[in-house]
């Protein structure tokens, strides 16, 4: 099936007005598949890291959310939570929320339970681990 106009326009805008600290490049042979790189926000344990993700737009996008997966190992309590999708959101907004989550981890709404537990009980330790992982896995 032809690529919906919405995906074409979103891609064009992502390229024309890129979000600072975020790159999203579609595959040439599959325009629904994007290679994404998010720079860790400054003053977060992820600062200095570049996190690679893959993003895929399913057949019924935007009715269903993009599928996103971290390729780079990351120590974070909430990573890949995509609750509350709505078709008024877009690739740009979803990547921005991921970037924001990196800046403000929320251990009260966890996906990775063990990480969230540690974040609550020993925040400095958790932050140190996150920083360490960033250095080991996410530094180019």
């Amino acid at each position: 099936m032809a690529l919906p106009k919405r995906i074409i326009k979103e891609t064009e805008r992502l390229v024309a007005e890129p979000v600072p600290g975020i790159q999203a490049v579609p595959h040439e042979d599959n325009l629904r598949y994007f290679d994404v790189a998010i720079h860790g926000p400054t003053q977060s344990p992820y600062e200095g890291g570049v996190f690679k993700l893959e993003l895929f737009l399913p057949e019924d996008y935007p009715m269903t959310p993009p599928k996103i997966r971290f390729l780079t190992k990351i120590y974070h309590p909430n990573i890949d939570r995509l609750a509350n999708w709505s078709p008024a959101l877009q690739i740009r907004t979803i990547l921005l929320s991921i970037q924001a989550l990196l800046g403000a981890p929320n251990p009260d709404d966890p996906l990775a339970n063990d990480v969230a537990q540690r974040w609550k009980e020993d925040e400095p330790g958790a932050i140190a681990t996150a920083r360490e992982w960033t250095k080991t896995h996410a530094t180019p």
Partner: protein
Amino acid sequence: MSVDSHHESRLHSESKKSASLPDPQEPESGHSERLSEKDSRSTAASNAELAPNGKYFRDLIRLIQCKICNKPLQQPLALPCGETLCRNCLPPAHERQNISYPDQPGRRQGFACPFKLCEGQEHSLADCNLDITLTNILTQLDNVLSPNLPPDPLGLSKYFTTNLDARAEVKEPQARVSVLLSGYNLAQNGDLPFDSGFPQHTIPDGSLTSKTSDGPLLTTLLAATRSEFDCQVCYCLYNSPITTSCGHTFCESCLERIRDHSNLCPFCRRPLSSYRNIITGKSNRRLTDLLSLMYPDAISARKTQISEDMPEGEPTVPIFACAMTFPRMPMFLHIFEPRYRQMIRKAITNGTRCFGMVTHRQGEAPIADGDFDAPFNRYGTMLYITNVQMFPDGRSLIETIGTYRFKISSYSWKDGYPIAKIERVEDIPYGDEESMEATERTLNPSSGDNPENLACLSTQELHQNCLNFVSLMRNNSVGWFTDRILNIYGHPPQDPALFPFWMATLLPINEQEKYLVLVSTSVRERLKLIMVWIKAMEQKRW
């Protein structure tokens, strides 16, 4: 003498005006800058294409005028009847009597609709919200037009209401008049009644407009407002725009797709189902008319593109004639017949995971439904397959949940099972539900001597009486009502719209009776049906 003085004042205004009008070659606003050179050069062409004559501009201005105050709409509210008015033009609100459902904030405040077609019908304030798309369009439009209005709008207005004698004297200045600006100015001053045309002696006819600044101004205007007409779901020009009561606008086709996945507005996440415009599929008149006036070529290109993208024929759904089910209620099925195995397998592999469930027809149809001649009933519930357990021999156990009710419009047979074209069955809008309750309770202020008279009860009381019966039955541990049942179907819903579906699923009543609950599109009516069953059961017991 008087002619002369007019003449003078006219020239005076004219010189002011020409100074404030932009040179087409030197766009002055931010929007104009974005226009490419090509746009400026093609001004003449688009001018001819759009044929912007006096009538065109009058229609354009009428579409942004309030029918009440005649001025350009300020904070336009979209009414449930499809009309639009300024927030300040809302008639005074009053407390609405005898309504108890849905009892949401703001719903008890109402007003009599001032528009002819409604004949004074009452709207709930909660149903009238700011039309966000139209507001944005009006803002863009004003951004383009206002800077071009002369510093003394009143002077201009006087100039255009000059009488006939004056016109005979000066032909030349007239030729450089902007019909669009002067019309907008008249409207702003409230001097342009909604139903009348431009005053003939004040605004020149179409033959003169090519010499005016209207061409470039219109081009700027069209470019500035264009993106406001894009649907935020498909990112294309609105196709049959529908505005929800929360004030957000979507293409009709986008809204249909949204509702297949969720019942919430993508922007504000308010529930969509109760909105009249969605239920009636009524387009936003102002937006539709603005679109066809402003972007006739783009809209026809969009329609062509849509018809090319549409799969051949209407989509059909597989139908399983088996059992009575209701929305939001789970159902477990053992699939063993080969034709239904195939049906389920297809629903899983094509990703829809949906099929329609209807009941077999037993003798006469429970309600009259015209020439529908199938061996099954016409109304059913769409089921979504939440879980499948396949056995090696091809049988399966499936768990499903009811999503929405439908009515079969036509059907045929395929691979041994029916496939059908369907329409969703929606509850009547909140407004109609409320007026039904208000009418019944006003006519039946008390039950009188007849305890069977349910009409005097509020919708909330009906719901509460049902809930009381349920807890009584639970305390008495009746057979159809056990903890096991509660585990499967959940506790009685607090939502009066859903409660009857829960009750009808549980109560041991014959299917002909339950079918009446399935097809009822009024919450109050459904609750009354349940109450009748309850009364009958109570009589049997005592």
